[in-house]
């Protein structure tokens, strides 16, 4: 609109990437300049993303802008281009907009108090802002890219930033929360590594999938993929092997999102990712990182939907996506029931909500009304980005004040920090899906899609999960802000540390996000209504406008009803303190949930333990056997040469004797042969 689209589409990720590179330079000038520039870059990115959206609304068309040919290798050429369509712009707005609010929030959050109570900035802020901007830039690169390879590059940049930021506080000398490490810093570094390693498992599948897909189609470009997918003669000319490989490629590609978006069986890294600063968690959970997986699936779903028509077996991709999503949603929700750390609850809720998105996106390929399911999935992506950012930032505000992660150290904070508490509660309502927050509309869309599409069992699983979600969300709200003050809080107060509201730089993002969470349901009208003509034009063969908005049928009533089933028990147990559940908590079920279904332990045994075992085994057995072989050879040759040397006595008699014997032998041979 203000900036031409083709320029804005580039600048929107170039600006934060350049901002990241320049951060050390600004840091030389001064800490304040560096912080201000980071915020400025964040808002410039947000502005560009919003500007793109505005252009999208005014001139709805999907366009692929190719800038340069990156390389020509053999028969293939790779172009660098950006692809502007509703989906990429939506994700860019999420990453840029929420990212900028998080960076603004960081100004206050990354300032702590030293022993004398003076305000001090974290000493490694240059590194912090560098990676935060790189993170946002990488994420936007990922979503704007017009081909799978560039997306993969952004994907890895995002992964690397998450590694660096989760382990950001690797210097903390406080005792480790887990017994295996000496300090909290070492634990944090290990958490970062775990996140990177686990997602990397998926990345390798993704890379292999991209390569196989390239082998089949000969292109990385989304537009070309889409046009090939709908081409029946192309599919007919594939041959048996290649068309059988296609579902394999699709499933391998899905391995990437499984890792990045923390779905079963690669969900284990996300709870540990809480080791980073809360702002980082907010960025990972709301704006970047985990959304990358959903984005990639959303990007490829239309391609694969078209392929199902012509190629047999692609449906298995949608089955897998939907069922893994639904199962993960349920599993993570059960784990969230027993967590005591506020950030851990939020982490499990992220896994669970991402599961919803995958369920919807997968269902898009299974049901006749794929439009509804698809837009439900993407809309839930937007909704989740808003309310999860809000919840994390509000939680960060609480942690900042209370200086503890455990909800058992909180309680009754309502009176001290009203804005935080109110905004947090709005976020919680959205997460639980209470009318009229944005979460209500998005979940309602998902249920609607599942039920109308006849996916009854997926619906049941999603529905049970929704009840659990409402329960654990309000358990968290009541434990944190209501009820009696914990001993920890009393102690803090007694030491003259007054529980205080966050500074304004932290409050503004909270209020903005809370407003969005509360009124965001309107987006369902405005956002998708405005985008509707695009559906017909290019990449999405969907018609956004055909979504049944505000379907106030029995389903809606049901959706409203279940919150009562979920929230009321939470209120009774955690606010009013009714009932004693300690036996259940400590019983086998409680232990099972606390230990995260033992999946984590199993992985640790099999993969970490197993690999180390194999590695040491190879080192001790095979490698040393090779060494022994070369040593034996050397010793053998050595002893031969020593033995031989003994014949070289240097005594004339022996020499002459040997010579004589030799001549005699020689003569004998000549005479008799």
């Amino acid at each position: 609109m203000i900036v031409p689209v083709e320029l804005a589409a580039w600048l929107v990720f170039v600006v934060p990437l350049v901002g990241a590179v320049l951060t050390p330079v600004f840091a030389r000038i001064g800490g304040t300049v560096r912080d201000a520039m980071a915020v400025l870059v964040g808002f410039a990115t947000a502005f560009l993303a919003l500007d793109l959206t505005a252009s999208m609304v005014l001139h709805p068309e999907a366009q692929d802008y190719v800038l340069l040919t990156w390389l020509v290798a053999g028969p293939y050429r790779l172009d660098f281009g950006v692809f502007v369509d509703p989906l990429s712009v939506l994700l860019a707005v999420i990453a840029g907009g929420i990212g900028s609010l998080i960076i603004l929030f960081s100004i206050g959050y990354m300032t702590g108090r030293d022993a004398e109570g003076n305000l001090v900035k974290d000493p490694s802020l240059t590194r912090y802002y560098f990676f935060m901007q790189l993170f946002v830039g990488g994420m936007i690169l990922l979503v704007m890219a017009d081909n799978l390879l560039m997306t993969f590059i952004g994907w890895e940049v995002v992964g690397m930033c998450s590694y660096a930021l989760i382990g950001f506080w690797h210097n903390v000398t406080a005792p480790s929360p887990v017994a295996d490490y000496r300090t909290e810093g070492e634990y944090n570094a290990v958490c970062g590594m775990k996140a990177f390693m686990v997602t990397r498992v998926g990345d390798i599948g993704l890379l292999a999938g991209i390569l196989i897909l390239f082998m089949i189609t000969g292109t990385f470009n989304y537009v070309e993929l889409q046009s090939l997918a709908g081409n029946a003669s192309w599919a007919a000319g594939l041959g048996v092997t290649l068309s059988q490989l296609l579902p394999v490629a699709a499933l391998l590609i899905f391995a990437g999102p499984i890792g990045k978006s923390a779905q079963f069986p690669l969900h284990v890294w996300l709870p540990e990712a809480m080791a980073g600063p809360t702002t980082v968690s907010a960025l990972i959970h709301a704006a970047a990182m985990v959304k990358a997986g959903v984005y990639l699936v959303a990007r490829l779903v239309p391609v694969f939907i078209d392929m199902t028509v012509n190629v047999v077996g692609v449906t298995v991709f949608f089955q897998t996506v939907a069922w893994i999503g639904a199962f993960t949603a349920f599993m993570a929700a059960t784990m969230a029931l027993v967590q005591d750390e506020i950030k851990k609850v939020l982490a499990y809720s992220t896994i669970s909500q991402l599961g919803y998105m995958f369920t919807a996106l997968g269902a898009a390929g299974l049901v006749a009304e794929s439009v509804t399911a698809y837009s439900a999935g993407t809309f839930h992506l937007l909704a989740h980005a808003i309310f999860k950012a809000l919840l994390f930032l509000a939680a960060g505000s609480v942690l900042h004040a209370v200086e503890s992660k455990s909800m058992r150290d909180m309680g009754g904070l309502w009176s001290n920090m009203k804005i935080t508490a109110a905004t947090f509660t709005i976020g919680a309502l959205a997460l639980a899906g209470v009318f009229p927050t944005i979460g209500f509309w998005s979940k309602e869309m998902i249920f609607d899609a599942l039920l109308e599409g006849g996916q009854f069992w997926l619906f049941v699983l999603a529905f049970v999960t929704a009840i659990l979600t409402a329960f654990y969300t309000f358990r968290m709200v009541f434990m944190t802000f209501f009820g009696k003050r914990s001993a920890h809080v009393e102690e803090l107060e007694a030491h003259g540390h007054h529980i205080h509201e966050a500074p304004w730089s932290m409050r503004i993002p909270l209020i903005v996000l809370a407003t969005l969470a509360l009124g965001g349901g309107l987006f369902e009208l405005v956002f998708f209504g405005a985008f509707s003509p695009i559906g017909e034009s290019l990449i999405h063969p969907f018609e956004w406008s055909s979504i049944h908005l505000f379907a106030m049928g029995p389903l809606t009533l049901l959706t409203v009803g279940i919150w009562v089933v979920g929230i009321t028990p939470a209120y009774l147990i955690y606010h009013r303190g009714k009932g004693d559940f300690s036996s259940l908590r400590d019983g086998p079920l409680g232990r099972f949930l606390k230990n995260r279904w033992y999946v984590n332990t199993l992985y640790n045994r099999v993969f970490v333990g197993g690999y180390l075992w194999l590695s040491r085994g190879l080192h001790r057995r095979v490698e040393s056997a090779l060494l022994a072989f070369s040593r034996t050879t050397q010793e053998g040759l050595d002893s031969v040469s020593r033995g031989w040397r003994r014949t070289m006595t240097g005594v004339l008699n022996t020499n002459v004797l040997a010579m004589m014997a030799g001549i005699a032998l020689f003569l004998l041979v000549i005479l008799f042969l």
Partner: protein
Amino acid sequence: MFEELASMLMSMIPGNPLAFLTLFPLFGAVVAFLAGERGSRAVALLVTLIELVLALALMATFSPTFDPSEPNAGMRLLWNFVLGTMQIDSHTTPVQVYLGADGLSVVMALLSNIVVFAAALSSNHIERSRNLYYMLLLMLQTGLLGVFFSIDLLSFFIFWELVLIPMFFIIGRWGEEGCQHAGIKFFIYTHFGSAIMLIGFFVLYFASGLYTFDMLVLRASGLPIDIQMWFSIAVFFGAGVKLPVWPLHNWLPWAHVKAPTPGSVILAGILLKMGGYGFLRLGVWMVPEGFSVFSVVFAVLAIFTCIYAAFVAMAQSDLKSMVAYTSINHMAWVLLGVAVGSALALQGAIYMMFSHGVIISVLFIVAGEVKHLAGTRQIPEVKGLGRTAPRLSTVFILGALAAFGLPGFSGFLAEFFTLLGSVPVYIWTAFITLGVFLTVGYMLWTLNRMVFSDPDPEAEVHDAPLRDLIAPVLLLVPVILLGLWPDLILSMTAPFVTLVTGGATP
């Protein structure tokens, strides 16, 4: 502007540029020896810097494209110098130094000049008999360039062996405790491989019936397939020891661990590439049909080597030894690319040689610095470098990220091209990605233990002085540049690749 400058530089070179590039360090070696303890370092730095600039100029002015109908298979700037003649039966064979360059040679020459320059820069901790040391270093450079420019089997072999001798002395004389054993081991292993390769050269000489060592003639003559196969096996031993391939790799960790830092840099940075280059020039380029017979065997061996080396690297407690096994792990990609032999896979192999050469040099210099600053290289004993040595840690982290192939660094593209070229040919080559995964694992684990851990209050570690970090920082420039702009190398090697894969020249 840049190209004008380059062509001006090239025109200033007296005589044939390849001959000058190859022989200038030899001349420099004599000067360095005469310059004595004090001046030798300056001479060596100057000579290697001039060499580097000339290699860049050569690359800038060199046009790798050619018409397939040309004789010489795209070899340019030919130069030969006949040392004498051999009279065998009625055939007269010249014993000659015969130089020529195509895109591949130019790229390899640039890599060797970068690595040798970096090695010379990072030799500042060499204290004993410096003039001798720098003389050997410069002789080594002559040998390296000679290998990459030779198009005559005999001169190829002479240079190939010329590399061995200075390296043997550098390991044996300036290395750590136990270095003599390591030096001898290195010498015997590589010499064993070379000997088999030499037999192969002579078999080709006689069995082809051509009585020539000229690679261009041999290549063009269309050798019978069985001779090509036997020759490929001979090349496998010669180049496979250098690369190295499991189970011929045993010399490498020892030689690396015991060698002085610049020695390791040269060993990993460029000596191993002679193996890769040997496969490309003597195998894929000279006897393509015979070499492709072993395609599956070599590819399987490559994948096994990669994963095996990654596992063993994980078990190492010595940082240098860990980096050495990483080297084996990465060079296996080169063998994979060469074995598969499709255009993209070959590009990937060449790319991997270049990128590995610069990345691994960074890591070896870091390992040397760690030993220098902390007194030990044992990974569990060195702690908290992130806080005590932030500058060194930054270089270390960047090197490690590049080594495990993060996009944005050249290593990623190398692996990507190789995979992209290999998977369509043999789908099971995708298993090599397990090696990548393991590399990520042990690299990050090492970083966690050494950099992001809690510093040991009793061990006093200072940060590396800036002058020690010049070389690794300079080496990181091509790593990042090539990560973003692969065409710099690919455009040079594309005609070579199209030639050997039999496609049309782009």
